[in-house]
């Protein structure tokens, strides 16, 4: 029974939730890696070199993508909730996606 979800606003919500969840799950890992700078900088370097590997690169891109998607989606929500409401919700949703894609695009171009 997916039916009632098949519209842009729900998809925007779903994306926001998934990206938020994924970010929250990734965050401890990210922190852990960074704190290696303290205990063993070499290992951190080792990790960062793996960043050259295509798989890790993909993951990295994914993270920035998630962050961008979530941030723009969040901005969309905040605008909707806090500013006096205009009916152009779908435009906002589309704008948020466009913004996220833009950022990711730039990141991707730089990364490769």
């Amino acid at each position, binding site marked *: 029974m997916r039916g009632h979800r098949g*519209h842009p*606003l729900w998809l925007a*919500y779903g994306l926001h939730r998934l990206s938020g969840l994924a970010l929250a799950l990734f965050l401890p890992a990210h922190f852990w890696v960074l704190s290696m700078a303290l205990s063993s900088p070499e290992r951190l370097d080792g990790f960062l070199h793996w960043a050259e590997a295509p798989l890790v690169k993909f993951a990295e891109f994914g993270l920035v993508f998630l962050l961008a998607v979530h941030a723009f989606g969040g901005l969309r*929500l905040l605008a909707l909730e806090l500013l006096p409401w205009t009916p152009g919700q779908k435009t906002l949703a589309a704008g948020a996606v466009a913004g996220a894609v833009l950022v990711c695009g730039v990141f991707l171009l730089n990364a490769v």
Partner: protein
Amino acid sequence: MTASTGMLEVSVWRGSAGDGQFQAFRVPVQENQTILDVVSWIQQNADPTLSYRFACRVGMCGSCAMMVNGLPRWTCRTHVQKVLNGNRLTVAPLRNLAVIKDLATDMDPFFDKWVEAEGRHHPTATRHDPMPPITADAPGRAEADAAIECINCAVCYAGCDTVAGNPDYLGPAALQRAWTLINDAKEADKGAILTAVAQSGGCFNCHSQGSCTAHCPNELDPMRSVAGLKRATVLAALKGGS
């Protein structure tokens, strides 16, 4: 001109609270046939034990909503041709409400939440006072008018995944009613309403999924109303200094 041009394959959910399954029926196609007509045909001709609910049959009472091909809809005003999937139809009880039997659900929680949201007028005047002069362009009037066509059919309530996940959530319809009152110049106790909708099951739980607005058969916009409540409650709290 009741020419039937074939048969519909209709899958109807049967059972009572908790357990049940779909049962297949074949229903003759008719011109001008609504989903309610299909369900009624089954009960009147094929299986007299089928249970469902309706009253007005013209979209005014909000008793007849069901899940039709997976979407929450008023069935008395949904033309079969509009939703037909090939020649198949699936009809199930409204989502997010407990089933009494077959297609009839227990709507009490929906109305209990209406009450919990303080969804009723708190008077400023009595029957012995004149009716207040209020013009159409008075502040808030348009906003207050917007929800008046709500027939409390719970279609929005059935479409909302937040309701599904969070049984305490008051839901779009009750909150929309509260928002109407907040904008009503005649309302005496806006404070009580704001308090009611700011409680733990209140407006802050809404994730702006927008399914309420997408499915409301009267083209109302509960999502916008809930957003309005979020602003109003935050503002009131900031002013109240809490």
